[in-house]
């Protein structure tokens, strides 16, 4: 029943460092780090392509890179992320340390029973 769940969820700052990363099989976390890190190439490629068109003003909304809508999790994650950003005590650019966000992410992860 959990086959469609995520194994790793990461939120990346626009300066290319992780704001939040969590993976379910914790014993091989580094593997996921590598995976997420290398996948950023595509994002960067997209951004640079957009940037060329608009000159200096970078349009940072890239749309969906992958059919995340199939899993209905992106919306949930994004809402939670918005909540974190609305926290007046949160500095944009700091790593995310929010219990609520943690909870949402945990709900999307594969349950390793």
């Amino acid at each position, binding site marked *: 029943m959990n086959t469609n769940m995520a194994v790793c969820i990461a939120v990346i700052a626009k300066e290319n460092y992780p704001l939040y990363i969590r993976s379910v099989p914790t014993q091989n976390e580094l593997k996921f780090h590598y995976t997420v*890190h290398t996948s*950023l*190439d595509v994002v*960067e490629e997209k951004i640079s392509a957009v940037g060329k068109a608009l000159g200096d003003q970078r349009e940072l909304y890239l749309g969906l890179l992958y059919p995340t809508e199939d899993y209905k999790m992106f919306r949930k994650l994004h809402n939670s992320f918005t909540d974190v950003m609305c926290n007046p005590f949160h500095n944009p650019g700091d790593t995310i340390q929010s219990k609520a966000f943690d909870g949402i992410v945990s709900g999307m992860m594969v349950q390793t029973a």
Partner: protein
Amino acid sequence: MSVPDYMQCAEDHQTVLVVVQPVGIVPEDQFFKIYKRIASVSQVNIRDSQRILIRYRHHYLPENNEWGDFQTHRKVVGLISITTCATSKEWPQTAERFHGQKEVYSSTLYDSRLLVFGLSGEITEQQRTDVAFYPSFEECSDVEKRVEDFVESIYIVLESKRLDRATDKSGDKIPLLCVPFEKKDFVGLDTDSRHYKKRCQGRMRKHVGDLCLQAGMLQDALVHYHMAVELLRGVNDFLWLGAALEGLCSASVIFHYPGGTAGKMMGRKQSISQPLDAGKRHRAGALTTNGISADTSTEIGRAKNCLSPEDIIEKYKEAISYYGKYKNAGVIELEACVKAVRVLAIQKRAREASDFLQNAVYINLGQLSEEEKIQRYSILSELYELIGFHRKSAFFKRVAAMQCVAPTIPEPGWRACYKLLLETLPGYSLSLDPKDFSKGTHRGWAAVQMRLLHELVYASRRMGNPALSVRHLSFLLQTMLDFLSDQEKKEVTQSLENYTSKCPGGMEIITLPDGLKLPPVPFTKLPIVRSVKLLNLPVSLRPHKVKGLLGQNISNASPFIYSPIIMHNRGEERCKKIDFQWVQGDVCEVQLMVYNPMPYELRVENMGLLTSGVEFESLPAALSLPAESGLYPVTLVGVPRTAGNITVNGYHTSVFGVTSDCLLDGLPSVKTSGCLVEVIPALPRLQLQTSLPRSGTLWSFCVGFLSSSVSVQLFNGETQQLTITLENIGSEDIETLELTSKIVSTKEKVFGEFLSWELDEALSHLPLKPGQSVTLTVNIKVKLDFSGQENLLQDLNDDGISVTGLPISSPLRQVLKPRAETKPVGSESSKAEYSHIKTLEAVLNFKYSGGAGKVEGYYRELSLGVHVDVEPSVFFTRVSTLPATSTRHCHLLLDIFNPTEHELTVRAKNNQDLVLHASECQRMAIQVDKFDFESLPQPDQESIRFSNPKQLEEERQHLFHAAVLNHVHPSLRRCGEASVEGVLNQLVLEHLQLAPLQWDVLVNKKPCDCDVIADCKVGDAVSLEVKLTNRSKNSVGPLALNVVPYQDYQNGVQNYDLEDGVTFIGSNTFYIDTVKPNESTVCEGALLFLYTGDFYLSIKFQDDSAGRELPLAWFTLPSVHIRALDTPPQAGA
């Protein structure tokens, strides 16, 4: 075919393959020298329009050669062998070998050449086209020419083959071309079927297309490929269809991108590819000039057959999907992927390129050797780099690096691994310069970076370069500190300590063999420094500039005395000059606020200052900071050895065996109030020791500038000697010494000199050499107000004694004298006021200088604080005067109160001791001389009095010396002097003044005063002189004096009726003319006593004679007491 050539690109399809190989023993460097010269001939123009491109290999698997029919550029068509041959005897053997080598590629070779070096003699004379002789590797100028000839001959064969195949008509039977693994599949197939024939035709078309492409006939090639595609699609011959499509792509790429697709592939490391690369670039340049012919009709035809850039990718995709159907065509598929990626890179379609690469990653080539794996990962990394996917590139490079040291490899290549790891750094946004991490937020992905750094550390250690691993580990610790867990911090530091025990880390730049420089890693976070503050010298050592050189600084700054424009330069704030000075040769301090971010104790050794400007001897400190300490002050010290301006640039530390030089410029978070300070030339140093104990008492003012202080408790009026020993503890002579004092707390009125000294003795010892000392005695004399409270002094007349200037006869005084009463102090509160301890504080200031600093105009100050707690000794609760019998004297009546808890003896001049018990009050009368009138001011001339305080002071001194009381505390063995100075009020003072008119009465030429009885003989004339000396400022007189004799019966009855007893000789009235200031007049008269007895003479003024504007007290004459005797006195006899 199992070994892919990752270097291939689309335009390689138009080249012919020539293998260059050594035969026998050829020195490697010489071989490659020749190889490079051969490879430089990469393009040969045959006729004006025809050209042929050559691809050289010095190593080629014969196995791959077998795929030559499939794609002709894989076919080895030429062989150049290089050999050495010392003697002609060896020649046959060499020739044999050459033939053997030819055999290997015999099936495909068009032509071959042998280059023989080192042979000379008759053999070289023989004319053979396939062999060239050169005497040595140096003398072979026509190698290129020979190669060109060789290529031309290849071209001829190629052209003939092309024509041969192209003109094949359907009448002949077309052979079936096939790849090695297909051969067995076609055994027993019906060769006459239409399907089979079509297959043969299609494959042949494709083959002809290849040949056309190699022969430089792009248009023909395109046509043939198109036909081949049509034919092969019809028969579902997928492998060859793929090849035909790829051929079509290659031809189109050659057309669209005459610059080539491999252009960006620089810096490849495989030694095989390097010479090739050089050749390619050369060729590429040639292509642009020759590639497009002027014939427009062919141009149009080409455009029709040629694929558009988008179609190229589509066709590549299709071709690859067909290749993918065949397991044995893995290498072909992989190479096609690589070629496609290169094309996409040129087209800047990175994401599609990454799809191809993604596909390439999953192509299974069966069992690969470790080396092949490394090569594969490396090339993947390079291709990712090519399309701008730096992270993926770094990932594969790292995998390749790890592959170098895989456990299955018997001899792990740690060097190669390390080298590859270094190349991954940019992909992880990691540089090895800690400066890049010192500012702003952390860049990049810390978890991954940390992993990489760990691997670098490990690899460099296994390489046997501990210095390198220390450097990397230091870098890891410095830059990743925020991301390390406590456990990791512990591990990292432990291993760092292990490494540094063998190879201590330093600040030198490590240069790697390939030229990469590893900058030093200063541990600016171990410990973290928050602020740097240069400290002034201790107060006693601070240099002071002699005044008089004023304005020196102002004139430097600006030509204006005042300018509203403030020179604000934030950048210079750090190096602005601090407004104090350090002194050469004296220890200077810099205070750092540091803290330890580590979860355990941090030991920092050899922490010292980095300075520039003057020679500076840093005295390093070692410190141990507790775990996660708060801000912790650390003082670093050093001694400037020369004078000038010194700049504190930073500090150095040694932590975990790594020495770091931390420069403040690189630490923007460090707060500093300036780092530039002036060092002035050396000054001497003086140390001070006192005979009194050092004080720990509280000072009523800021003690910051005191170098030391003494404290003493004294009774009011007591004197104490303070011996000060001054020792020169510096290295310079003390040439000047000055001493000044200043009373600090002015709340109390101090009488007399509080501190007094004789400096001359000490000065005679100057200059004081280092180590020498002088002593100096300072008297501490406390004389505070001895009066009680003000209100106690107000009422002078409460006991009925009138204080007047009128003479009071001795009997009255006799009555008064014993009236010493005991009067206990009334209330407790008043007692408390009496016992109040007062404080006196003063500062003794020693100014001294010497040495070079003195020349520059500097001196030092040493201050000694003197703190005296003054306990009350005696109080004069009431003061009044009584006139004495003589006009020159006066009685001072003092009510003396003993506020102490001890018995007290009061001793006044000419008086007996008065013993006072604790808290007892007694009256004491002291006879004092009246003092001179002249300088005493008029009571109504207050302004004069104050304008002339010094004079007044002198006068008072005079009086007080007369009135000084010694008080002794017998039980404490202490004594002191009490002065009435502060007690006397104006009224009392007036009574103590000597009248400005001085009257002297002489009887028988002897001065006569109240208590003196003049003796005379009855019947003898007694001369009487009255002398008036005018000491006032005005003239006095004229005056008339009336002398009246009388007898006093001592019972209150005075008998003036002495007509019979006393006779005046002459007048009994003296007239005195006007006496000018400072003059005197004498009146003389005589008396004759007729009876014996005691007589008194009262000299009075006649009422009308004196101008009564002057005070009465001025006109008091001493009363004269004469005793007339019968017989002359014994003494006179």
